[in-house]
């Protein structure tokens, strides 16, 4: 493997350089509170910043979903307390349509982008990349810091948009024009929409800075011996995630900028032949559908940007806690690769009923269903990883198993939607809502929880309370299935999504009990998440202390650092790597860390 040798040599050079640089840094540079916790360039701190900002957004986004669920579950009831808090938006204690749509829109935006993209990738890419590949920090700690602060600015703008007097954006998280392009189309299309677009632009900048850094770091800064194929699957997953983001986010950025132009400069990229609110607009020649192409060219890869890091962490956690190698490492890498490629080639499956050329649609059907093949491989490999293991059910393991279960359930409903024939019927119904919440929303959340429970000891030197963790898991998985499983039936009855009141509809108005049940369960699940957040912050300060540097008996490099690693991660030299990350249960040994040289009598496998 001459190639590998090449990579090693290269890495070595960089390592030396880094060691040097860092010793300098640690010894002569005094850190203040501000450089240590606020404008920090330490990847671990930046990861925590992403995580905590993500948690705050998750609470806001989750709370919004509880509010709009109140309307869905109890459309005939009034909640005076809402008027107390939200004034005209909940006049008479009834959630007004504008308010409902604003809630749904911000809920979607925030969870997709701020929580499951920034909060998930931002946290774990930052925390894990240098630790697992054996580097002192990211390729560019400064850009890394900027990446967080752009996210912060995006957050501030989005948050501010909640308080403007016409309210935030309310055209759905996909913000299709002309609805989102025309001030006349509704309150949510006024200044709130501009803020949404500017916030997203900042967010995209953040993503790109982060992503480029992740790619550069993984490709260039691996420690000696850490060839690509010895990396833990978390690294592969994050690498592909970053590549997806770097290639697709710019397209959304251009889409958003064109939309800003249409809104404010009188251009007609997306506008044509419009008569609205008694006014004839001059715009001609634009295409409303163009935006959907631009949006989904990011939008579909985006769902995998959300999912892949979770897949990577789940692979790692399942293997560690089954005390068994991940089954089919190369197949896992290959399927990640296949998913990443195909993710770029299926976007129009969100647009089967926009008047898309049916012939073109056929290709998108084929490619979409093709994605199910690598997805299936992953599922089978995870299940085989559990098979004949010796499984420890830490909260992280449970969430990882939950992830697999949800991924199966939600992936299978994708096979309905990906088939255009069925999608004609199910598009924009509750079935779609159920599909993507299970496969992306809840599943990735599970991946994130698994990651938090697993790496919390590395982040804070303490454990989360495990009993609460178990309760958290059980309530959440039962709740998630109770909420989203029956929702498919609503979709199969034709109930459209984004309907806040079904009482006028003869065909749809038959799910009263179900909607009440779902609302009640979502309140309980939301409360449970608050409990988790409480556990999180409580444990940072009061959690059980970690006493051994490798509490899970893991092979990967992050557990060779001190319990509370400083900036630079390893006090001495960066360890050298001699094997892949998955030698669990080999030759009768519990686990063999990556740093251990291959023994003379070791079995040759892998």
């Amino acid at each position, binding site marked *: 493997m001459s190639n590998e040798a090449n990579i090693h040599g290269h890495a070595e050079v960089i390592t030396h350089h880094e060691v040097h640089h860092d010793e300098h840094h640690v010894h002569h540079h005094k850190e203040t509170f501000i450089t240590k916790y606020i404008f920090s360039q330490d990847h671990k701190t930046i990861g925590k910043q992403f995580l905590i900002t993500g948690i705050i957004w998750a609470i806001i986004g989750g709370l919004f979903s509880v509010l709009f669920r109140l309307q869905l579950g109890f459309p005939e009831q009034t909640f005076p307390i809402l008027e107390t808090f939200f004034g005209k938006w909940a006049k008479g204690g009834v959630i007004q349509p504008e308010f409902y749509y604003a809630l749904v829109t911000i809920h979607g935006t925030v969870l997709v982008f701020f929580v499951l993209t920034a909060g998930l990738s931002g946290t774990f890419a930052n925390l894990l990349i240098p630790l697992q590949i054996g580097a002192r920090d990211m390729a560019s700690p400064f850009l890394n810091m900027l990446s967080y602060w752009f996210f912060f600015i995006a957050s501030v703008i989005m948050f501010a948009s909640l308080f403007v007097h016409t309210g935030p954006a309310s055209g759905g998280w996909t913000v299709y024009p002309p609805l989102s392009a025309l001030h006349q189309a509704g309150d949510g299309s006024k200044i709130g929409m501009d803020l949404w677009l500017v916030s997203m632009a900042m967010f995209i900048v953040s993503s790109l800075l982060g992503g480029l850094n992740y790619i550069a770091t993984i490709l260039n800064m691996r420690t000696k011996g850490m060839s690509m194929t010895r990396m833990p699957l978390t690294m592969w997953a994050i690498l592909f995630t970053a590549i997806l983001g770097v290639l697709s986010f710019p397209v959304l950025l251009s889409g958003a900028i064109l939309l800003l132009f249409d809104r404010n400069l009188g251009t007609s990229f997306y506008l044509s032949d419009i008569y609205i609110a008694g006014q004839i607009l001059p715009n001609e020649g634009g295409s409303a559908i163009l935006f959907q192409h631009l949006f989904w060219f990011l939008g579909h890869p985006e769902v995998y940007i959300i999912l892949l890091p979770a897949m990577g962490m789940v692979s790692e956690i399942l293997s560690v806690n089954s005390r068994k*190698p991940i089954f089919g490492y190369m197949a896992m890498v290959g399927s990640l690769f296949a998913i990443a490629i195909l993710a770029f080639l299926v976007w129009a499956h969100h647009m089967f009923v926009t008047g898309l050329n049916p012939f073109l649609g056929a290709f998108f059907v084929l490619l979409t269903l093709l994605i199910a093949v690598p997805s299936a491989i992953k599922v089978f490999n995870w299940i085989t990883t559990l098979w004949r293991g010796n499984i420890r059910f830490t909260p992280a393991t449970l969430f990882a198993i939950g992830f697999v279960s949800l991924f199966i359930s939600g992936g299978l409903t994708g096979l309905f939607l990906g088939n255009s024939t069925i999608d004609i*019927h199910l598009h924009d119904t509750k079935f779609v809502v159920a599909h993507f919440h299970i496969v992306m929303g809840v599943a990735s959340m599970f991946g994130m929880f698994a990651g938090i429970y697993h790496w919390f000891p590395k982040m804070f030197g303490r454990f989360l309370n495990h009993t609460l963790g178990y309760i958290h898991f059980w309530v959440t998985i039962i709740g998630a299935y109770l909420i989203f499983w029956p929702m498919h039936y609503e979709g199969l009855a034709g109930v459209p999504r984004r309907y806040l009141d079904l009482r006028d509809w003869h065909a749809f108005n038959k799910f009263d009990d179900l909607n009440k049940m779902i609302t009640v369960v979502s309140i309980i699940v939301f409360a449970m998440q608050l409990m988790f957040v409480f556990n999180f912050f409580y444990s940072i300060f009061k959690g059980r202390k970690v006493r051994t540097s490798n509490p899970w008996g893991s092979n990967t490099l992050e557990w060779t650092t001190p319990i509370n690693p400083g900036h630079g991660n390893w006090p001495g030299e960066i360890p050298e790597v001699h094997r892949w990350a998955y030698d669990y249960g080999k030759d*009768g040994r519990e686990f063999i860390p990556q740093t251990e040289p291959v023994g003379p009598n070791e079995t040759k496998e892998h």
Partner: protein
Amino acid sequence: MTTTFIILILLLGFLITFQIAKASEYVSVMRGEEKSRKQNNRINAFLLLTFLVLGLIGVYYCNERLGGKILQFGSSASNHGIDVDNMMYITLVITAIVFFITQIALFWFAYKYQESDKRKAYYYPHNNKLEVIWTAIPAIVLTVMVGFGLYYWFRITGEAPKDAMVVEVTGSQFKWEFRYPGKDKVLGKKFYKAIDEGANNPLGQLWDDPANHDDIYVTGEDMHLVVNKPVKLVINAKDVIHDVGLSHFRLKMDAVPGTPTTMWFTPIKTTAQMKKENNDPDFVYELSCDQMCGQGHFKMRGTIVVESQEEFDLWMAKQKPKYYLAFPDKDPNAPKTDTTTTKIAAIMPQ
């Protein structure tokens, strides 16, 4: 009042759970962490199995409760809907098999291979034969699904039959408007800049085009279709994107401003038939807007009547072209018999 009460209860539950959790941690430290870890392991393994069993029962129960409320496979009211239902049925069978196999394997293995002092994990890093098998099988099954899917897809999206009647549907915040081509079977030209609601021209029909003079305009009431007669909908929007959703026909098509779309199908059951079939005297075909279009989106409802040709003709005879409302002086003033209509047609193209 009740809200405060609920919040209080939640808070209490919160506190109690937290205290239990904290206590359990102390207990585990006292009893030895290893021992309590193992106990937790057994409990959670058992719960995983329980979850599987209850989950499967739940799936069954859910289907019992809700299965009757969905649009039943095979009950579609259009020709294309039958294809959609068939595809759905095929997909359901395949996915259900995969679902049960994989979920059962997942939870069963988790339970069976829980940590035990007696067992060592089996070092099993890969097996290429297995990988090939479970790449090939899904690929084959998916090919079958794609095959059926595309076959139906092209049937549904193919050209409308020549004899199809045409109805134009226009969506705008938040209503539906319908236009029929009238006797000449041609929809007159229109242009959005000609829209003038004050002058009886809500669609922007160009009155210079004689094809417009007999076009019938309807809004705020049923769209009328003829049973077993193919219909081609020409779909427009005036302001933002809407979507013509016809759940009983299993069809849907976006209404995009600036880019007309079309969709055709053959209704195969009259409204009266559906009333009988569903045992529901209030049954009506509904047209729902399925694309987020603003704050009235959820109320953007239209209704459709499917009836026999005679009933349709009777209804049509009562309609008056919009042209006469826009230009009452052109109206021969007795618009009830065929003879007058022909007379008008003769006068119009001056």
